[in-house]
């Protein structure tokens, strides 16, 4: 065991915020061990106040450059709930199809570009090309399919423009849906190549375990592996389902001195959300290929190794492809028809809840009689994971203290990455110096 370890992975830029890992071990005793999130608050809830219900989605879509469809869907559902708007079955299915595109897009991005370099021992995806060019090319190909799929349903890859309270402003043609189905079928072999590649380095996935509470959506009527409908469940409540309107009872947000992001807790001092939480709560409802992928990696319900979240995401990639093909068949069987979208301002309060790729997401808005927003409350999945990451650190560090300082730092960084955190993507400006 090392008697003295001093790790300070510090990435404080108040514009593009990150997290810090701070470890201080003196004479074999852990003095400081913190997962800190120092980024500046972004005040989206304040930004939407005073704006029309019709503008909410456009603003909150910018919360995230990766899960902008998810934020758009959660906010649109919340607005529709507040205004008492029902959407057609066709709209519902097309939105789910849109949402699936983002799950694939985000998961493959995380598995391929962020987690795979760890498993292959590369510092990032750029040098990974030298080690595993074919795998990276396959990842890029699948990511491209997912992006184009988003583009088709959402109007553009990021920051959707087709969503309106009450419906969609534009729908794909049946020909485009048939083409999409073919493309998705053609993508399955590529996904298998990626799964095989990850399996080949799966020995590098740390075997750390810690029991915790896993929270996700659960859909019971009809039962489905849900990203979009249903209520809130957890591994601590024996399959019970809490209506999404009671989400504050789930999140219990609180302020913690080491973080500018709020932390959450439900039945324990922390809980986890994301692909592993969904799998642990709904794994038996995966599509056949999803189940096969889980089996291939030995992923079983009850898994409490946070590093396996990446594997659960890969499993979900198979599921969303298979579920989407079935959804397209249902849409084509009924035939697509143009639908008029209309809504009228009225006072009300509503909640929208969907699964972001990185976990359950809550949006809540209240409007006055003119449809102007008077209150907003958003709870993102990454904030729901912060306390859990801290508790993982506290169990994991003593287990790896015998390793080198570099190894310890890498393992703790990998642990953070496994949660696929969305810390901030509000700005991506260039910061350059000219080569003289």
């Amino acid at each position: 065991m090392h008697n003295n370890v001093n790790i300070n992975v510090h990435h404080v830029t108040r514009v593009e915020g990150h997290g810090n890992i701070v470890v201080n071990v003196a004479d074999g005793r852990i003095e400081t061990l913190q997962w800190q999130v120092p980024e500046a608050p972004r005040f989206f809830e304040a930004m939407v106040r005073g704006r029309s219900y019709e503008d909410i989605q456009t603003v909150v879509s910018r919360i995230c450059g990766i899960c902008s469809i998810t934020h758009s869907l959660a906010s649109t559902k919340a607005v529709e709930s507040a205004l008492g708007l029902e959407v057609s079955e066709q709209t519902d299915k097309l939105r789910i199809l849109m949402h699936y595109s983002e799950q694939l897009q985000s998961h493959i991005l995380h598995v391929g570009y962020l987690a795979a370099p760890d498993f292959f021992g590369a510092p990032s995806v750029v040098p990974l090309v030298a080690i595993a060019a074919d795998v990276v090319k396959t990842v890029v190909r699948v990511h491209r399919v997912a992006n184009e799929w988003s583009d088709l349903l959402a109007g553009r890859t990021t920051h959707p423009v087709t969503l309106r309270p009450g419906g969609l402003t534009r729908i794909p043609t049946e020909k485009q849906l048939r083409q999409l189905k073919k493309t998705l079928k053609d993508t399955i072999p590529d996904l298998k190549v990626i799964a095989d590649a990850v399996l080949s380095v799966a020995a590098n996935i740390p075997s750390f375990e810690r029991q915790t509470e896993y929270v996700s959506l659960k859909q019971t009527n009809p039962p489905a592996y849900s990203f979009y409908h249903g209520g809130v469940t957890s591994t601590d409540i024996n399959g019970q389902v809490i209506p999404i309107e009671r989400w504050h009872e789930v999140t219990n947000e609180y302020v913690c001195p080491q973080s500018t992001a709020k932390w959450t807790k439900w039945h324990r001092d922390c809980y986890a959300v994301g692909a592993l939480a969904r799998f642990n709560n709904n794994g038996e409802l995966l599509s056949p290929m999803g189940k096969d992928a889980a089996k291939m990696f030995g992923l079983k319900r009850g898994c409490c190794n946070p590093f396996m979240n990446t594997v659960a995401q890969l499993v979900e990639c198979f599921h969303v492809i298979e579920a989407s093909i079935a959804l397209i068949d249902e849409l084509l069987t009924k035939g697509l028809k143009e639908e008029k979208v209309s809504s009228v301002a009225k006072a009300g309060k509503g909640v929208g809840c969907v699964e972001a790729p990185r976990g359950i997401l809550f949006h809540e808005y209240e409007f006055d009689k003119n449809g102007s927003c008077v209150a907003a409350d958003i709870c993102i999945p990454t904030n729901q994971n912060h306390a859990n990451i801290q508790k993982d650190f506290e169990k994991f560090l003593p287990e790896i203290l015998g390793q080198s300082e570099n190894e310890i730092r890498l393992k703790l960084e990998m642990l953070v990455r496994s949660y696929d955190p969305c810390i901030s993507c509000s700005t991506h400006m260039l910061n350059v110096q000219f080569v003289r």
Partner: protein
Amino acid sequence: MTRHTRKKDVVLGLGNVLMSDEGIGVHLIERLSALKKNFPHVDFIDAGTAGMSILHLIANRRKAIIIDCAKMQTAPGTIRRFGPHQVESVKTLAHYSCHEADILQIVGLCRQLGQLPDEIVFFGIEPQTVAPDRSISQTLAARINDYVAAVCKELTCQID
């Protein structure tokens, strides 16, 4: 599967319109899109804070023009044209999250994958204000016609 036939050239506007001058790339795409009839060979795309998706938007094009807010140690409002080989990024990435992005790294990945456009041109615009605000600063607003003209000139000189 996509809605449009992919065109030979692309102009990408990057940024977040909720963060004042940081969104200048997107504001310029709005202005340039109004002129798209003059440029039938060009896709004008609001790429927002798209990160890695930029890879797909530029891959295998003839020419990619990328407009972004850039800290270049110049006076606010300054526009500079440069190629990827003329600059080096001084941005620190944490690699915790796919949400952070460095466009120069993305271009590097595109090169390694053999999908680089024949030509990449950046227009960097030095910000006055990067803070929550849906409007750009007066400094940049006063020069927006110059920025549009610079991009149009770049496109015009490339028409076959």
